[in-house]
Structure formats: structure tokens, C-alpha cells
């Protein structure tokens, strides 16, 4: 459902993505791996509209969405949980959640949606009226994901969801996402430095190095390939 062709993006003179191709099947979980600076975050930003690519195209369910603004991508079913989570600390948990669903103009969903999110992520329910500032790292990650889910996306982009989290928290979040995928057919594109976690969860994986795609295979095969593991994944 997502087709990226020859995507090239740069920050000024620095080329962060160089002709990357990617194909993501609906309902699958794809991991994007690679060292720091490989271009993983840039890839997500170019897909979600935060960064305008210099060349190449992004097609969503067959329609060309290259270079469109993030607000438009959201309305087409793409939701991006950015690096650092982007939780709005001055707002309460409840306000953060509602914000994610406002564009739909659906009063019913604005009522039921947060309730559903509190079921999915119980720790958030206890803090619903507290300012997001008071949340721990794991709770913030849950809030960021829940907030993105409020827009009922078909494609969820996650940038380093396990960063700074305890393994158990990560496992809980991963389990919730897998459940969602099974229940709703949600497609996940996941950027991770922690290759081990990512490969254990993903169906397919793509490895980036210095802006170029160097590997694209099923997760099992990549996990088993020693050369790949040593060279790019630090395993």
C-alpha cells in the first residue's frame, strides 16, 4: 500500500537519502534499520510530508502524495509518531489525545476514541487530566502512539519507539501494536536502532546506510544473515 521510488532528500548540501526504493504491503510490519545518520528518520519525514524530497515519489494506495503537507497526509491515513515522541507537554493527556482526533470532526469518536485508547494503554487512564509533562518516558511513548491512533490511520510511522524505554515497557507497547495490526489491519513502518527488537516483531526489514538502501528482505532472513548483522546492525 506504500510505494516509495527513488526517493532523494537533503538538508541543504547534505544528502540524507539517495534514491531509496521501498514497498510496504498492507497489514505488514516493516522495520527500517541502520546506524545513526543512515537516513532512517529522514525517510519517515519524507513520507509523512515533514520534509519535501528533492527527487523520487511516494505513492499511497496508488495515489501520488509526494511533497504534500503533513496535514494532508494525515487526512489520507498516514500518521507519524516522530523521533522524540513530540508529546505536547503543556497540554494534558486527554487534550493530547483529543488533538489527534480533531481533524475528523466526529463528535462520537472524540468521545469514544480516548476511552478506547485508555483501554489499550491503561497507564494513561490514571493520568488523563495531568499535564503531559508529568509522564514518564514509557507513558509518553504510549501517549504519542495513542494520539496518532486517534486519527484512525491505515499506515503508522514510528520513529525509534523503544528509545530510552525499559525492555518490559517496550514489550508491552509492541504487544499492543501487534494486537492492533491483527484486529484492524494497521500497517506499520518502524524505524529502530534496536535491531534485535525490530527484527523479532517485523515481517520485512530494510537496511539503510548513508542514505542508500543496502538490504531489503524478510526479517527472518536478515536476522539469520551474519554478514548483515555484523556490518550494519551491530549484532
Amino acid at each position, binding site marked *: 500500500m506504500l510505494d516509495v521510488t527513488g526517493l532523494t532528500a537533503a538538508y541543504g548540501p547534505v544528502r540524507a537519502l539517495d534514491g531509496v526504493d521501498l514497498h510496504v504491503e498492507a497489514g505488514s510490519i516493516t522495520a527500517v534499520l541502520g546506524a545513526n545518520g543512515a537516513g532512517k528518520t529522514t525517510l519517515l519525514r519524507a513520507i509523512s510530508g515533514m520534509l519535501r524530497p528533492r527527487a523520487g515519489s511516494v505513492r499511497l494506495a496508488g495515489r501520488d502524495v509526494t511533497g504534500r503537507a503533513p496535514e494532508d497526509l494525515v487526512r489520507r491515513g498516514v500518521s507519524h509518531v516522530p523521533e522524540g515522541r513530540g508529546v505536547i*507537554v503543556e497540554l494534558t493527556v486527554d487534550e493530547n489525545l483529543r488533538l489527534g482526533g480533531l481533524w475528523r470532526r466526529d463528535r462520537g469518536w472524540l468521545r469514544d476514541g480516548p476511552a478506547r485508547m485508555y483501554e489499550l494503554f491503561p497507564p494513561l487512564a490514571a493520568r488523563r487530566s495531568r499535564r503531559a509533562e508529568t509522564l514518564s518516558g514509557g507513558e509518553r511513548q504510549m501517549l504519542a502512539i495513542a494520539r496518532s491512533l486517534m486519527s484512525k490511520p491505515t499506515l503508522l510511522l514510528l520513529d525509534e519507539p523503544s528509545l530510552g524505554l525499559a525492555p518490559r515497557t517496550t514489550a508491552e507497547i509492541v504487544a499492543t501494536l501487534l494486537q492492533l495490526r491483527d484486529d484492524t489491519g494497521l500497517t506499520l513502518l518502524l524505524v529502530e536502532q534496536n535491531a534485535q527488537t525490530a527484527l523479532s516483531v517485523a515481517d520485512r526489514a530494510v537496511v539503510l546506510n548513508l542514505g542508500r538502501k543496502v538490504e531489503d528482505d524478510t526479517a527472518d532472513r536478515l536476522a539469520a544473515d551474519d554478514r548483515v548483522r555484523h556490518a550494519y546492525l551491530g549484532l
Partner: protein
Amino acid sequence: MLRFLDLTLAGLTSGAVYAAIALALVLIWRSTRIVNFAQGGMLMITTFIAYTVISHGGSYWLALVVAVLSGFVLGGVVERVLIRPVEKRPPLDAVVVTFGLLVLLQGLAGMIFGGTPRSYPPAFSIIGFRAGDHRLLFAPNDLWVVLVVCGVMVLLAVVFRWTSLGLRMRASAFAPEVSRLLGVRVGRMLTVGWALAAAVGALAGVLIAPSTFVSPTAFDAFLVFGFTAAVIGGLDSPPGALVGGVGLGLALSYVSGYIGSDVVALGALVVLIAVLMVRPRGLFGSPVGRRV
């Protein structure tokens, strides 16, 4: 004692007006991180528009509504056309653009209306209330000014806190990039922010007009004191605008009454420096750096 009461009441009235202008500046600062030096010019234009309505036979209330609506439109247009190109640039570019706009508006007003100050009718009586034998320096019209400003502040607080528009505007101000990822049309929110701010400013202009008369340069001092009040309260704090405005109004009233009206500007400077030395970001300004 009576003199003190008089000065306090007068200070409250002028303080309410400074608070309104400070609030307009705070709204713009929060949404676009720009200080709008043209605020005085914009409210001057809307007050002239209100004056035109009245001089053609309209009622005070009609003129008030027209002023606020035209302020809303003016603010939105200014943001979309003039400010959008400089929003992402260094702050001094916006200073020059808003200063240029101020001069332009004063020139246009001078061309259309001329420089002679026009008188503007007050909403209510300007004869002070009686307190025993003494006639206070506080009239029904002054009470009206204070009540309107308080009412507007409450209304805006409600809008920001309880409505989805307010939520989107706050989010756009705190975290524009993330808000866009959540489908919020941030550009539109910035325009609305300016429109609301200009509407508040227009209201302040109509409130001050009876005492200052209406001319292209009549409102300059109010921008200066409004900005001072906003800085004292903290540029990103609407309650700060209220406190700063009223506080400054009171302080200047006492300076004017006890020391002399010619050093009022100096008094403002002293109050400002005193506050900033203790709290460099204003009384309620947020500290440096947001933890995300």
C-alpha cells in the same frame, strides 16, 4: 486618602486598557513569536472606521461591533499577506515589517481622515460617581471599560481552554511541527490568532477613544505602555497581560498624581527595569527551554 482612591480607580481604568493591548500582543507573540509593533496603528484604523460609522449616524454599539469585526479581518489579512513571508526569518525582519506597517497605516489614516483629532462619544456618562460629598475620578464609562476588558479576558480564556479551536491554537503555538503531524492546519491557526488579537486591540481602541480623541498618532503611547505591560507580565502569559496591565496602570497613575505627569514614561521605565531585574522573563513568563 480620597486622592489615593481617585488615583487607584483611574489607574484601574487605564490599566484595563493596557491589559487589553498587552493581551493582543501576547496572543500574537504566543502564536507567531513576533512582537506586533503595528498593533497601535491597527487599532487606530479600526477606531477610525468606528468613527466613520458614528459620523454617518450609526449608534455607539453598531460602531463597536463594526470595529471589532474589521479588526478581526484586518488582523487575519495582515498575517496572511505581510507576516507569513517573514515568520520563519530572524525576528528583526518582523520588527521592520511591523514598523513599516505602522508607518503605512498612519500615513493612510492621515490621507483619508487628516490629522485633526476627532472626538469620540463615550458609551456612558463620564461624570464621576458620588462618594459622599466627593465626586470620584471614576465614572460609569470607566466602569464599563473595566467590565468589558474583564469580560473579554474571561471569554478568551474559555475559548482557549474549553473549545477545540482553542486547543488547536494552543497546540499550534506550543508545537507547530507536531501539530501538523496531527492534522492541525497550523497556518490557519496563526491567522486566527492574529485576527483575534486585532479584534481585542480594536475593542481597546474604541474604549480609549473618548479620552484621547481619534487621530493617526493618538494611540502611539498606548502601544508603548501596552508592550511594557505585556513584557512585565511575561510575553507568553495571558494572565500576565492582565496583571501587568493593571499593575502598570496603577503605578503610572500614582506617578502621575504624586510626582508629575511629565515623567510618566520614566515611571514606566523604572517599573519595567525593576521587574525584569528580578524576573528577566516577566512575572509569569515561562523559563528558558521546554522539556519534551
